[in-house]
């Protein structure tokens, strides 16, 4: 039998057992929304999955059940004994179908017409019909009694023991990971394979592996102690024995750790088929590209992300990618592209799913959420576009205009979010209208081993995941003094001529005002260690007290009590047995504001034929006239300076300052572009300050100081310059960090500054 079908059967058997239990509970607590939602999801999953395998009878049957449950969930109907009976009968009917598939390879001939009719009638308003006569073929058994008798029946059937089924029974007892059910499913699949193929593998209880792992950890510590002792002892026999112990312990640690890891490919390999089948069913052409499948994760976690990923892929195909005609009409290739990417970042594994479909319209999301009564109208109006995207995570939210066989009932995103969060992960969404949607799932590695740099802050040691690390910079003596400069409260370090925002670990960890530390205090240190890090595609420097070694660390989760701590990705146990926290570099950068709001950047595929220049560059973001945001390429920036207003002198109607033995002409960005009236007003604002913030440019040997209202940030982003708002001195506009920003034409304004009086220069006419 097809392995995928096998997996579906085993999973469904388990889900149905669960559903049966829940139905019985539901009768006792008819108002329990959680229960209804859970039952609904089970039926939804069965329906969805059997759609792919073309078990059409089963699909029709579960669709009828789902429709009824949908009305229960929305509160239009309430649970009555008749409904509960019908739903239990549904469980039986599905079970029968599953058994038939398992034993005969097809669904059998029964079309369950009477049950479907019963479910459909019950789903009608006022459709609480008296229970129909018992369905043919099961005389004398009232559904009610059957329900209570079921556990015994199930047990008996299982006892009669076909291989796979008895294996499953064992597994569900043995499974012990936090997400026991999911982990169990994995065991099942392996068990089945093992039973049918060879006996080369042995199933081991996850608890046993956990225990082994902990013991190995202890052993490592004892080993370290023995090695230390033997080093000071004169006994050569002890030395050789401890060396032997050393080697074996390393090997053991390695092997035990590996037993728990699996590459994501075990999961990814199933997706091409899924996408193909979904695409066919939706009448769409969709291709999937995958990378990073070799990324290893704890196997229980792999199982836990399976369902969320299937949901997301289903959404991407069904809602994301547009029908081929629509795509061609908007200039996209007819074939939609889904990209699945996995990689390690900041001690976590990121799984990113991207589609090049129509994207999500924040306005529509707001409206739908209000229509569906999930948020109040005024509340929804206050949401930013990014916040509006998160509306899809509300239970019951749905955007699809029509209910299809796969999705559109609003099951999905809330489940995705819950599942991912239950293993300590997060889900982020980014979408660009017309370009596509990106979903990022970040999950902890739990037991993965990662190389990390150990750094010191005071007496404490912290681990920094190696994959965030770019380089180490050590400033000594004279260099250390003034190596870090301060600009606008934002400390920067010049790394090979580029300005690198700097974060001080001690300052951040001591709860100081994020990002603002006293540079002068650092200048007193004899040595400054700067670790150049990369997070979310941006670079920054982290100042630490000391740098120790690079070593492989075992990432351990922080307990529930510290779940909310944003700066740590976990903890690890160092060679001496002490605990070290693993820094979450992205969290740290966010706290220190070096990533700003760190909106997940959507790098969507370019529409075919688009001519815009898409490039990634570092820019200086500042506030220009009328509080507009402007950027200039950082490579043009020589220095950032602050001059006291009194240092400004005038020559021929132009403002200049003495600068490094020369004369630096100043150009006021605010007055340069603003209208006549605004010029005066803005000019006064700047005048009111004691100091001028000046960006010093060099272009072809000429220097110019650009006076700006406020330096906001240094950003590295990929953005597209569009022709909107082109005018004198402005190259165009782009979206930088989620906001429309003007790109200054440096060459132009420098040229103008050299020919005073031709146009409104800085000082003239005021």
């Amino acid at each position, binding site marked *: 039998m097809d392995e995928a079908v096998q997996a579906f059967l085993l999973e469904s058997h388990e889900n149905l057992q669960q559903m049966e239990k829940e139905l019985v509970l539901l009768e006792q607590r008819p108002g329990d929304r959680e229960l209804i939602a859970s039952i609904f999801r089970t039926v939804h999953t069965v329906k969805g999955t059997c759609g792919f395998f073309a078990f059409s009878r089963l699909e029709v049957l579960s669709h009828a059940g789902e429709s009824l449950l949908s009305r229960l969930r929305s509160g239009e109907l309430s649970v009555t004994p008749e409904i509960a009976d019908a739903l239990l009968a549904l469980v039986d009917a599905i079970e029968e179908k599953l058994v038939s598939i398992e034993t005969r390879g097809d669904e059998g001939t029964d079309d369950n017409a009477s049950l479907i009719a019963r479910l459909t009638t019950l789903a009608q308003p006022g459709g609480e019909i008296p229970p129909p006569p018992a369905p043919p073929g099961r005389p004398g058994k009232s559904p009610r009694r059957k329900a209570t008798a079921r556990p015994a029946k199930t047990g008996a059937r299982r006892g009669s023991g076909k291989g796979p089924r008895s294996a499953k029974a064992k597994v569900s007892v043995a499974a012990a990971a936090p997400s026991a059910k999911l982990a169990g499913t994995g065991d099942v699949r392996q068990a089945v394979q093992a039973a049918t193929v060879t006996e080369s593998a042995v199933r081991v209880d996850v608890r046993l592996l956990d225990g082994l792992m902990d013991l190995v950890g*202890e052993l490592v510590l004892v080993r370290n102690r023995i090695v230390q002792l033997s080093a000071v002892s004169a006994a050569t026999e002890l030395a050789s024995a401890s060396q032997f112990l050393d080697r074996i312990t390393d090997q053991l640690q390695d092997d035990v750790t590996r037993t728990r890891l699996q590459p994501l490919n075990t999961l990814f390999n199933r997706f091409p088929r899924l996408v193909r089948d979904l695409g066919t069913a939706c009448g769409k052409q969709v291709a999937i590209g995958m990378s990073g499948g070799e990324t290893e994760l704890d196997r229980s976690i792999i199982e836990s992300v399976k369902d969320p990923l299937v949901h997301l892929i289903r959404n991407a195909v069904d809602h994301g990618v547009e029908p081929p005609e629509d795509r061609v009409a908007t200039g996209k290739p007819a074939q939609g592209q889904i990209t699945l990417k996995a990689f390690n970042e900041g001690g976590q594994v990121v799984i990113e799913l991207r589609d090049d479909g129509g994207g999500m319209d924040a306005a529509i999301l707001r409206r739908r959420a209000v229509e569906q009564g999930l948020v109040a109208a005024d509340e929804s109006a206050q949401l930013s576009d990014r916040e509006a995207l998160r509306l899809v995570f509300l239970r019951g939210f749905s955007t699809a205009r029509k209910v299809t066989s796969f999705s559109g009932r609003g099951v999905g995103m809330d489940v995705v979010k819950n599942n991912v969060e239950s293993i300590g992960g997060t889900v982020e969404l980014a979408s660009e209208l017309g370009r596509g949607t990106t979903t990022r799932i970040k999950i902890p590695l739990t037991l993965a081993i990662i190389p990390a740099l150990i750094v010191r802050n005071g007496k404490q040691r912290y681990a920094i995941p190696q994959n965030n690390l770019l380089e180490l910079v050590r400033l000594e003596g004279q260099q250390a003094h003034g190596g870090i400069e301060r600009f606008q409260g934002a400390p920067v370090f010049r790394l090979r001529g580029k300005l690198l925002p700097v974060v001080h670990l001690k300052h951040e960890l001591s709860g100081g005002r994020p990002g603002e530390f006293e540079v002068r205090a650092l200048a007193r240190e004899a040595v400054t260690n700067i670790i150049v890090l990369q997070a979310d595609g941006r670079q920054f420097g982290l100042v630490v007290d000391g740098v120790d070694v690079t070593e492989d660390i075992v990432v351990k989760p922080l*307990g529930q*009590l510290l779940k909310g701590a944003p700066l740590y990705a976990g903890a690890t146990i160092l060679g001496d047995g002490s605990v070290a926290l693993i820094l979450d570099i992205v969290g740290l950068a966010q706290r220190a504001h070096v990533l700003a709001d760190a909106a997940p950047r959507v790098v969507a595929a370019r529409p075919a034929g688009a001519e815009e220049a898409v490039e990634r560059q570092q820019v200086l973001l500042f506030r220009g006239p009328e509080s507009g945001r402007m950027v200039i390429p950082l490579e043009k920036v020589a220095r950032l300076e602050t001059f006291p207003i009194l240092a400004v002198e005038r020559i021929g109607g132009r403002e200049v300052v003495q600068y490094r033995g020369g004369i630096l002409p100043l150009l006021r960005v605010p007055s340069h572009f603003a209208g006549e009236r605004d010029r005066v007003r803005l000019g006064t604002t700047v005048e009111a300050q004691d100091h001028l913030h000046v960006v010093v440019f060099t272009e072809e040997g000429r220097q110019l100081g650009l006076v700006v209202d406020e330096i906001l940030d240094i950003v590295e982003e990929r953005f597209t310059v569009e022709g909107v708002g082109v005018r004198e001195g402005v190259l165009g506009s782009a979206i930088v960090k989620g906001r429309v920003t003007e790109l200054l034409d440096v060459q132009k304004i420098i040229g103008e500054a050299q020919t005073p009086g031709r146009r409104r220069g800085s000082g003239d006419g005021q």
Partner: protein
Amino acid sequence: MRRLCTFYLDDMLFGIDVDAVQEVLRYQTMTPVPLAPTVVAGLINLRGQIVTALDLRRRLELPERPVGLLPTNVVLRSSAVGASLLVDSIGEVLEVDDESFEPPPETTQGITRELILGAYKLPDQLLLLLDLKKTLEIGTEVQA
């Protein structure tokens, strides 16, 4: 009858169900967790498992533990939480009966009212029953 694991904090006797306790350990060095809530005293390596130690004095808003008095760890059983309570010293396991139990008087206020379910009136002193679940609800927001 109920079996309680008892311990002392600021000369008062507290108790939690003995089944909730995994083990009792002498003082362990801890790794502080900057920016965590102040009740988090640090992290402990318990045979390869990371356990969060909560300063029960701070949790109950009692005076700080005198310098030099090393706290004892009462490690809780629930592995998902991975928590240890720092107490001044450990007492005996006592059997108490419900007859001697009394809920807190109306006059008690503040955090004690929230975290203490009531008292067993022992012959020589009161044994305060801690609400373990609430004690572990330390909120997730961090300082600053």
